[in-house]
């Protein structure tokens, strides 16, 4: 649709016309600000915890485990130097091994979600699929944070209560 619009504008004499190819979906998925009725709706990216521990592929699992537990976390995201998500260490993986590199024990290629997904949708999905935590990434795979199921459910409940109050007779 927008390429046609761009061409039509040129035909009217507009000399500098650009087409944002990836469009609104890309913008919202990147967690950039937006306007409109749905712009304030809480999303996965808003509720995700940005302080989740991260580690690299070649770290020793025992070192990572100690660091993660000391920070009172039960999950760690494996990233590269560009913060691209490569794997995930949940409870089960964190408990495995001593000298092995993270690469050998991590869950590779974990499912990730985009920051723009509504928090009610995320809470429903995580409950249905029994996911305790989910990495949230930009469309190019960069880590935004980790969404905990408890946080998602709490935010979704709050939203529902607010909606019910607003629609009370």
């Amino acid at each position, binding site marked *: *649709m*927008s*390429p*046609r*619009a*761009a*061409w*039509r*504008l*040129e035909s*009217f*004499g*507009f*000399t*500098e*016309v*650009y*087409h*944002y*190819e*990836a*469009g*609104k*979906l*890309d*913008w*919202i998925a*990147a967690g*950039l*600000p*937006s*306007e*409109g*009725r*749905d*712009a304030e709706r809480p999303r996965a990216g808003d509720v995700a915890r940005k302080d989740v521990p991260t580690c690299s592929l070649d770290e020793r699992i025992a070192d990572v485990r100690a660091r993660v537990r000391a920070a009172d976390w039960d999950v760690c995201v494996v990233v590269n130097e560009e913060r691209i998500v490569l794997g995930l260490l949940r409870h089960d993986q964190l408990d495995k091994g001593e000298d092995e590199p993270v690469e050998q024990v991590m869950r590779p290629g974990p499912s990730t979600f985009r920051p723009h997904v509504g928090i009610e949708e995320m809470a429903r999905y995580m409950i249905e699929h029994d996911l305790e935590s989910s990495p949230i990434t930009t469309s190019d795979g960069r880590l935004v944070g980790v969404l905990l199921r408890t946080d998602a459910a709490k935010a979704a409940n709050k939203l529902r209560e607010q909606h019910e109050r607003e629609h009370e007779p």
Partner: protein
Amino acid sequence: MPQGIDRDEVQRLLSEGAQLVEVLPREEYEEEHLPGAINLPLRKIESEAKTRLDPTRPVIVYCWDSA
């Protein structure tokens, strides 16, 4: 020929005063749009582009995705 650009380039052009146009129907625009965008659905471009846009400034158009 209109030039395809990415998100970084959109931000750069906006900081330099480009105009931003969402060509989706009004309902979708009202739900959510990029900051500062005006709504000019494809069918209205014919009748409204010349009055609502400044032809001397860059214009960026977008819809949902590359379709």
